[in-house]
């Protein structure tokens, strides 16, 4: 039986209360995507600056629940400085973690490992992945603007 404290742990609460890399730069050197979940109203805009195949910066801003907002903050820290290839692997590992599958290389997930229990709270899984999916879309489709993820 999973306890609510497994969900709202200290790391998550810290990122929620003191989000890293929050606030948009609004500069052309960034690719921007507004990731939305219309059915629950969450909406996180992510900005990604890529130079020479490396993620130089990630910013985020928006509204959502604690899981959604903290996860955007965690994501920005984990993926910043990674190559696109590394970032894609970590994003993939994160999706697996959310499904309840522990990835082989768990250290790479850094703070994102704190979402390990979310598969015990299935209705909340999509909150955890929203910002990640926004960055995923930018990296792999070059799409900008808005995207809905249910």
């Amino acid at each position: 039986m999973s306890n609510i404290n497994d969900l709202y742990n200290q790391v998550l609460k810290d990122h929620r209360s003191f989000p890293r890399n929050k606030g948009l730069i609004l500069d052309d050197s960034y690719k921007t995507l507004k990731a939305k979940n219309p059915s629950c109203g969450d909406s996180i805009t992510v900005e990604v600056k890529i130079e020479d195949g490396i993620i130089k910066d990630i910013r985020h801003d928006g509204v959502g629940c604690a899981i959604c907002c903290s996860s955007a903050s965690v994501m920005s820290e984990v993926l910043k400085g990674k190559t696109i290839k590394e970032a894609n692997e970590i994003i993939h590992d994160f999706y697996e973690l959310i499904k309840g599958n522990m990835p082989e290389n768990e250290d790479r997930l850094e703070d994102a490992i704190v979402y390990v229990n979310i598969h015990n709270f299935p209705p909340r899984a999509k909150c955890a992945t929203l910002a990640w999916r926004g960055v995923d879309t930018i990296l792999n489709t070059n799409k900008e603007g808005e995207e809905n993820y249910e």
Partner: protein
Amino acid sequence: MNKEILNIRNDFPVLRNNPNVVYLDSAATSLKPDCVINKINEYYTQYGVNVNRGVYKLSYTATEEYEETRQIVKEFLNAKEIEEIVYTKGASNGLNMLALSLRETLKEGDEVVSTILEHHSSILPWQENCKIKNAKLVYTDIDKDGSVDLESFKKVINEKTRYVVVTYVSNVMGQILPIKEIVHIAHQYNALVIVDAAQAVPHLKVDVQDLDCDFLCFSAHKMLGPTGFGILYGKKKYLNKLKPLEYGGDMIDEVELYDNTTKDTPYKFETGTPPISEAIAFKEAIKYLNNIGFEKIEKHVEELTKYTLDKLDNLEGLTIYNKKSALKSGIITFNIRGVHPHDVSTIFDERDICLRAGHHCAQLITKHLGVVGTLRASIYIYNTYEDMDKFIDAVKVACDYFKDW
């Protein structure tokens, strides 16, 4: 536990199969009693053939069962004539059908009056109509607490008003609107009134002749009936004038190479094979509610709601948005201060308490309250004091758990 409620609970298989569940999401959809489920089963196992088509005995039985519902709905609403009862797929479907059928009657400069209490399914079809026809959508005033009074309708209904589109009971605020009085004002200006009764029919005795409304829509599934089925009531003189939106089988009279004539209302609005078992089983839901009696339903819901509100009064960190209007509808809309409703909802989910979190398909009123969403507990006939105690405890736990967020 009150013996009568215990008996009621025993009629609901979802409650029997999930004895720990506290179901407080009846405003989203109610649970279904055995009599409704058995009737669906009866159709599929005893005479599961198409309606209105065959000339054989089974088809006759199916059609009789299917049409009997229309008569029972007519009595349920106290409609004047059976032709005024149109079968739909639900409230959203009926409200959209009406808006589409009436679109061509709108002219530039006409006004449509509505409120920000509306569910998306009543307001958005008219938002579209007004954009397309350059008509003006006019919202009544609403006070800070999200309640709309008769005065605010008087202020905006005038010679330019063609339609008033209004919810009978708000699915967020639980407020019951004074429909009869609104209709009276609208009719003085020859405006027609469309009522969204989706949240009213489970709780109130609705009498369309007394209300004198011109159209009224609701779903079966919020009043113990099956999903995918609902009713559009309209005064016969208006339904006669409306053109059908969909053409095909069942709704047609004579077909020639380049022209056709349609049947009369209600059949001209009902093309294609309908949700037959749902229509047939819906009458069992009405009988079940009538059997308990709306007076008793109102009293039970009001008692539980009052009990709950009293226990939650002045709880630190809790905001209840509709203390004044919760009682009759059993809808309690709330938030824990500073915490997103989805974060709070997990506290309830952990305790098998089912309630809704979000904007409830009514973004206008949610925005008016100045929040991204709310939590909503909705109380119905099968809920008990035990349910409410578990809910109250969970609210207290939530207030405490999130106090330092």
